[in-house]
C-alpha cells in the first residue's frame, strides 16, 4: 500500500516536470526575438563597429544551434537533451556551456538564499510562536510591529537603504560583490570564508529582516488556534513544565503547515533572487537567469529553470513521502 502511494506521487512528480519543461520551451520562442541577432547587437553596442556580414553570421549560428529546424524537431532534441541533463552551450556566451555557468552561479545562490531562508524560517517561526504564547515575555510584543513593517517592505529596497547607511556612509560593509576583488577563490582557507561572509552579510540581513515577519505572522496564527485546543488544557493539567508544553505540544503541532511552505521556499532558492543580486552585485544564479531572459538565451533559461522545477518538484515529492512522519494522522492510504 505504501509503495503504490509513492509510485503515484512519483508519477505526478514527473508529469509536473514534463509540463513545466514544455511551457519553458515554447514560452521564449513565442516572441519574434532572435537570440543570435541580440548577441551580435550587444557586441556592436560595446565595440561600436557593425560587423559587415551580420546576416550570414546569424544564419551560420542558427544552423549550429539547430534553431533553423522546425519547432517540433527542436522540441524532440530538447526533451532528449534534458533527459540526459545535457544543457548544451549558451548562445550569448558561446562556447561556454550552460553547465559551467550553473556551477559558477548555483553555489553562491544556494549558499546565500538557502541560509537566509532557513534562518528567517527558524527565527521567524520561533518568534511567531512566542508572540502567541501567553507565558512568553511581554517585551516581545513590542518587537512585533517593527518586524511587521519590515516584512511589508520589498527586500531590495531594504537592501538599498542598508547599503546607503552601512556600506556607503560609514563603510563597515563592502558595497558589492561576492568577495573582495583581487582575492584568489580558495574555498579551503578560513580568511576567504570570512571575506565571503563579510560580503554576503548585507544581502542576507535584508532578506532575513524581510522574511522573518512573514514566517512569524503565519506561525502566530497557527499557535493561537493550537493554544485553544483541548489537548493543551489536558497537557497543562498534567503539570508539564512550560518548555515541554511549548516545544513538545504547541510548537510540534503548529509547525506542520510551516514546513510545507519552507519546502516550497527552498525549492525557489535555486532560482536565485534576481533583484537582491542586481542591487548587491552578488554573483548568484539569479543575475545569470535575468541576463539570459533579457538576451533570450534559450539554453541557459531552460537549464536554470529545469533545476528550479526539479528542486521544487523534488521538494514537494519528498514532503509527500515524509509528511506522514511529521503528522501521523496522514496515512498513505489517502493518496
Amino acid at each position, binding site marked *: 500500500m505504501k509503495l503504490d502511494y509513492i509510485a503515484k506521487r512519483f508519477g505526478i512528480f514527473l508529469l509536473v516536470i514534463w509540463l513545466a519543461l514544455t511551457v519553458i520551451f515554447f514560452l521564449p520562442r513565442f516572441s519574434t526575438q532572435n537570440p543570435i541577432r541580440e548577441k551580435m547587437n550587444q557586441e556592436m553596442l560595446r565595440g561600436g563597429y557593425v560587423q559587415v556580414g551580420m546576416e550570414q553570421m546569424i544564419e551560420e549560428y542558427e544552423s549550429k544551434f539547430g534553431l533553423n529546424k522546425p519547432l517540433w524537431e527542436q522540441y524532440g532534441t530538447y526533451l532528449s537533451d534534458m533527459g540526459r541533463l545535457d544543457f548544451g552551450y549558451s548562445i550569448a556566451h558561446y562556447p561556454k556551456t550552460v553547465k559551467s555557468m550553473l556551477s559558477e552561479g548555483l553555489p553562491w545562490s544556494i549558499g546565500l538564499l538557502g541560509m537566509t531562508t532557513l534562518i528567517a524560517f527558524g527565527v521567524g517561526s520561533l518568534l511567531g510562536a512566542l508572540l502567541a504564547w*501567553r507565558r512568553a515575555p511581554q517585551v516581545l510584543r513590542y518587537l512585533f510591529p517593527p518586524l511587521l513593517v519590515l516584512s511589508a517592505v520589498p527586500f531590495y529596497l531594504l537592501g538599498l537603504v542598508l547599503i546607503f547607511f552601512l556600506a556607503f556612509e560609514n563603510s563597515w560593509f563592502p558595497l558589492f560583490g561576492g568577495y573582495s576583488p583581487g582575492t584568489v577563490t580558495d574555498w579551503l582557507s578560513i580568511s576567504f570564508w570570512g571575506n565571503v561572509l563579510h560580503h554576503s552579510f548585507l544581502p542576507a540581513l535584508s532578506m532575513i529582516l524581510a522574511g522573518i515577519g512573514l514566517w512569524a505572522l503565519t506561525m502566530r496564527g497557527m499557535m493561537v488556534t493550537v493554544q485553544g485546543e483541548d489537548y493543551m488544557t489536558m497537557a497543562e*493539567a*498534567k503539570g*508539564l513544565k512550560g518548555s515541554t508544553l511549548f516545544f*513538545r505540544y504547541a510548537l510540534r503541532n503548529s509547525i506542520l503547515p510551516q514546513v510545507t511552505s519552507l519546502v516550497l521556499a527552498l525549492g525557489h532558492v535555486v532560482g536565485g533572487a534576481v533583484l537582491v543580486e542586481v542591487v548587491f552585485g552578488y554573483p548568484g544564479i539569479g543575475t545569470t537567469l535575468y541576463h539570459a531572459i533579457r538576451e533570450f538565451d534559450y539554453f541557459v533559461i531552460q537549464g536554470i529553470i529545469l533545476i528550479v522545477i526539479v528542486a521544487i518538484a523534488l521538494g514537494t515529492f519528498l514532503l509527500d513521502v515524509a509528511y506522514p512522519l511529521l503528522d*501521523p494522522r496522514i496515512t498513505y492510504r489517502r493518496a
Partner: protein
Amino acid sequence: MNTQLLKLQELQVFYHTDEGAVKAVDGVTLSLAKGERLGLVGESGCGKSTIAMTIMGLIKSPGRIEGGKILLGEVDLTKLSEGEMRRLRLNQVGLIPQGAMNSLNPVSRVKDQIIDGMRAHNQQISKRELRSRVYEVLESVGLRRGVARMYAHELSGGMKQRVCVAIAISLHPQVVIADEPTSALDVVVQREVMETIGQLQQQLGASVILAGHDMGLMAQFVDRLAVMYAGKLVEIGPVKELFAKPLHPYTQLLLASLPGLAQRGVFRGIPGLTPSLVHVPPGCLFYPRCPQAMEICSQEVPALREGDGRQVACHLYDSEVMI
C-alpha cells in the same frame, strides 16, 4: 467531622470582558471529605466548569480569582505561585477533561503522553520502570498493553476517555476532578467509564468532584450533591435525601424535569433564561423564574442555611428551624 480534604471558602472568580466583569463564581463555599464523591450540577454557564478549572489553577485571562480561598489540607491553592501549583497538578489533583475527543496530543503516542506526565514530577524514574508503570496504569483502566503504541486518532471515544482517566490517576492524586467526563459518549460506554472511575476511586481512596448536568448519572455515582445556579451555591445535601426531598425550588424543578418512564407527553422544562452575570440584579438570582418567589427574594440575597447535613440558600427557610 472527618478531616476535610479540600475546602472552598467564599470563592469568587470573574471574567473581565469589554462589557464588564462576568461573575462566573460568586462566593461559593463547600468542602470535600477524604474518599468522598461530590457531585456538582447546574445548567450550563452556572460556573461548575470554572470551579473545576480554578481548583486546577488553569484559569486564563480574562478570568481571574477575585477572592476567597481553596484549601487543600492547610495549603491555600489561590496563593501558590505558578511553579508550586504546577508541582501539585497530577501529583495531588488530577483532571479528567470534558472533551475527551481531542484531549490527547494528536501527534504523539499514548505511552509518551503518560510518560511525560510522570517524568514532569519525578526525574529519576528509569526507562524500564516507566514502561512497566505505563502498562500497569493502562490495565487499571481496562485497556490492553498494545494501546501504549497507538496514536489518538486510532482510538475510539471510550478508549480515549479511559486513557485520560489513566493519565489523571497515574500519580495517585488525592483529588480527582471529572468535568463532565462522559457527556460526549453514548450511554453504554458512559456506564463502563463511570464504573472504571468508581473502582479506581475506591482502590486509591481518592476523593472525586464530578461536575455535570445528568441528574440520573449523579444519582448512581455520587455521595453528596451540590446544586449551582448562576455562579452561586443554592443547595447541598446527601444525594438520597436531596432526591427524596429537594428543598430549593430550583432543585425541585430540576428533579421534576427528569423524564420518568411512566409519564408520557410534554416534557416539563424550566421557563425563562439564566440571568446576565454582568449586571447582577439584587436579591436571589432565581427570583424571576422561581414559582415560590416572595417579595424579599427580589431585595436580599438569601444566606446559606445549615441544618443536619443539609444546606440551602432560600428565603423560604429564613424563619423555620431546619427539620
